[in-house]
């Protein structure tokens, strides 16, 4: 087998060296009755060309050549091929967690740069080396807030990504964590009036997403003030990280839980992505996840190491701040390389292009009779429209024109069955936006 660097005779010689007569002998500590006699019922071994063939066939069963207006936490942005070329270097791709600093300075330096970039973008003081994704980062941020405040209720905006809230619910269930939902106003923003003194009193955190699931940007500064007034923390989650190129950073938030997929990571049917937690320096010892820190060797040469490990499971076991071990290091590297390429100018330019495309798309859709924008709040590259028919019906027809239409909100918001979430990034050609608008118009003109 091509992955195995041994010849039959080498196997025999090694067995002899061990003093074993057969390979079976090495498995004798497994009780006889549990040792398999037949080969596993798996498909026959495939050669490399056959493996490629298998996956190309699968790809053909997806939606090649479709134009998609889906966002909802996963975004298609321009990437440079440079990023992938670098990340595929074996020294990055096939290296282990950098516990042995002297032969891991490449990874450690890159993590240190990642932590720095995340701080610069979010306006926070410290950021970790990565979490699984946005949904688990948010959940861990909330557990962190609970530890910091000792308060076990959290007020979560309904406009937070529904799947993020589902993950939170799963974790919260057995930890005595109370989750209260907070609604939204006509602007699509969190209903600040619902944050009453007494609700806040027992709350460890107020949790929002900005831009939120409806694409609307929240007033972080204002919400922080309200939360802080009652001793609650403000946790802000960001699903569309590219927005930070133009949208005011959540400096007033106490913990930021971000999904970094938008920074050069392909959608890949939902993962792997890269979660991030950023917070204030004073909270660092309650932070989950790995951290790289700067130090020196005996000769005073600068170097980097994993640090503050006393927070982590391999040292603290049941007392750790989290059970996370393996994280998303490689995708933190993708984001790092991508951001270094894009740079200060590029990050701003890309974000601005998203705003322009969104505004253009809104204009095009608003022209369609019977179609109206659902929320009045400011948006980045996503927005909700209300249609005169169920979105699912409209999408069924769009599909025939190789268009994957707006995300139907009814599934997660029973009151919004005629509402659809539309996303347009800088990668969406004007012509495709016009094609969508034209198609929707045509669909609505034709009676059911």
């Amino acid at each position: 087998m091509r992955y195995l660097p041994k010849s039959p005779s080498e196997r025999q010689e090694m067995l002899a060296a061990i003093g074993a007569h057969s390979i079976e002998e090495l498995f004798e500590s497994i009780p006889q009755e549990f040792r398999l006699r037949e080969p596993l019922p798996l498909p026959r071994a495939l050669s490399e060309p056959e493996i490629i063939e298998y996956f190309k066939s699968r790809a053909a069963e997806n939606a090649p050549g479709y134009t998609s207006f889906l966002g909802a936490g996963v975004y298609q942005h321009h990437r440079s091929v440079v990023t992938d070329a670098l990340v595929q270097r074996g020294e990055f791709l096939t290296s282990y967690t950098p516990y042995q600093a002297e032969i891991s300075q490449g990874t450690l330096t890159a993590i240190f740069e990642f932590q720095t970039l995340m701080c610069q973008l979010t306006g926070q003081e410290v950021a970790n080396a990565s979490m699984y994704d946005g949904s688990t980062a948010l959940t861990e941020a909330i557990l962190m807030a609970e530890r910091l405040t000792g308060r076990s209720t959290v007020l979560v905006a309904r406009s937070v990504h529904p799947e993020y809230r589902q993950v939170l619910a799963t974790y919260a269930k057995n930890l005595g964590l109370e989750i209260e939902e907070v609604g939204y106003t006509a602007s699509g923003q969190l209903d600040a009036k619902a944050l009453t003194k007494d609700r806040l009193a027992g709350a460890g955190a107020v949790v929002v997403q900005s831009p939120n699931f409806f694409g609307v940007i929240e007033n972080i500064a204002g919400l922080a003030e309200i939360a802080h007034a009652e001793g609650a923390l403000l946790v802000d989650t960001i699903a569309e990280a590219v927005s930070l190129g133009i949208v005011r950073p959540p400096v007033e938030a106490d913990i930021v839980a971000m999904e970094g997929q938008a920074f050069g990571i392909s959608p890949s049917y939902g993962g792997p992505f890269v979660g991030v937690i950023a917070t204030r320096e004073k909270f660092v010892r309650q932070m989950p996840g790995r951290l790289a820190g700067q130090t020196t060797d005996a000769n005073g040469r600068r170097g980097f190491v994993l640090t503050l490990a006393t927070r982590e499971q391999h040292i603290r076991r049941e007392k750790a701040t989290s059970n996370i071990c393996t994280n998303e290091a490689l995708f933190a590297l993708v984001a790092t390389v991508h951001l270094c390429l894009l740079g200060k100018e590029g990050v701003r330019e890309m974000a601005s292009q998203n705003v322009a495309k969104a505004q253009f798309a809104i204009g095009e859709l608003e022209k369609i009779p019977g179609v109206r924008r659902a929320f009045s709040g400011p948006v980045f590259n996503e927005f909700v429209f209300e249609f005169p028919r169920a979105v699912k019906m409209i999408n069924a027809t769009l599909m025939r024109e190789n268009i994957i239409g707006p995300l139907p909100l009814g599934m997660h918001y029973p009151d919004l069955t005629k509402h659809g979430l539309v996303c347009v990034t800088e990668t969406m050609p004007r012509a495709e936006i016009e094609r969508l608008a034209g198609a929707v118009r045509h669909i609505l003109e034709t009676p059911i």
Partner: protein
Amino acid sequence: MNSKMTETEAPPATIRKAGRHVSQNEGLIFEKSAAGKRGMELPPLDVPAVDPAAALGRDFVRDSVEGLPEVSEIEVIRHFTRLSTWNYAIDLGMYPLGSCTMKYNPRVNEYVARIEALATAHPMQPADVAQGCLRILYDLQNCLLAITGMDAATLQPAAGAQGELTGLLMIRAYLASKGNPRKKVLIPDSAHGTNPASVVIAGYEVQNIRSNRLGEIDTDHLREFATEDVAALMVTNPNTLGVFEERIAEIAAILHERGALLYMDGANMNALAGVARPGDFGVDVMHLNLHKTFSTPHGGGGPGAGPVLVKKMLEPFLPVPVVVRKEGGRFALDSNRPQSVGRVRAYCGNFGVLLRALAYILAYGPGIRQATEDAVLNANYIRKHLEEYFDLPYDAPSMHEVVFSDARQKRNGVSTMDIAKRLIDYGFHPYTTAFPLIVPGAMMIEPTESESREECDLFIDAMRSIAQEAETNPEIVKAAPHATRVGRLDEVAAARKPILRWKP
């Protein structure tokens, strides 16, 4: 080039695996920034430009992000290429990290993960146009069930630790459905740190239990602790000593008698794939680390994937959504499962990792047994050749890994960490030193099947030579590594006054 480093250099004769070569220095990317340099440019905007402040409102926009680097494409290429040359990696040599199963990461897996309509698939695109992705998930589930002998699976957990949590949540939901979720989870003192940490998040108390002189679970002790409020035992099998729990059936029986379940941490599945199936020896719930046994690249710390496999009675509690095949053969995601523990991660988990694992399994088919045999062969070969030189605290038969201790070298003040660092000079990555906690000064060695005999022999040479140095020249071991760009770094200083980000 630093003279200090070289004064203490080892006598060259002893080192066959590595030399030293000129290596580029490189600062932080921020230190290369200059206003106006660009590393990536965008196509011109094809719609009217808008003033963000006007579109979003003054209070919602920011100035450009202070401190972001401004560098050119070539500088980025060189920066990260240079950084990469400071790393050790599987592509460079053996990684004898016990419990981590650092095996070859097949390149074709990287290739297929990048095929257009797979890499660009959106997790919310309708099932009609996601049949390829769903089929991949479905096929992988079936392969994993065949390998483990379990009945049902979820691929959602992002890593082993999350798999543990997911498994425990399912146990809890199951027991709760029977009326009482119970309070405690038993964990052997040899277990990995994520086990107890996951138990806590699942809302259980940790109860540690002793290992016996063989390094296996002490069944008397287990009987004693397996009370009515115990929900489960988390066993790692083979355990972290690389020893198969010979009384696994008895252990399962003890728990089952008392209405508790047996959870298996499958991190060491590389010792069993194709040889024995946990489903056959009493395991009720287990997770796999696809980034260990199933070859997906570690990438400097992640990503991973931690599928959970369960017996029939636990199926109703699987996280949503579940990938199902409908009659007619179409695939779909089923979220309508009232007893589900809920979601543990957004979307369908680390799809890109799952895809790679399937590619790995397709490459072996039933031949995966050969990989297991070679892994166990390598471990025993190394054990055999090092037994005389290092202390073997538990001499039960080894499977995929062997755990020595530094007891003998300690006499000369040489610790497992010193030996580990000295291995670097010999061109190897160190073995695992952090655990199992039941072995003071542990040296946990797992070669995996990916190592040729040549590489194993070089490792044996290196270890023997270091054992000798520990006698004749302990200082050189204690001051190691000597061959690297930087020497041992001051971790205490790093933790005392943490510098966690670059500042101008």
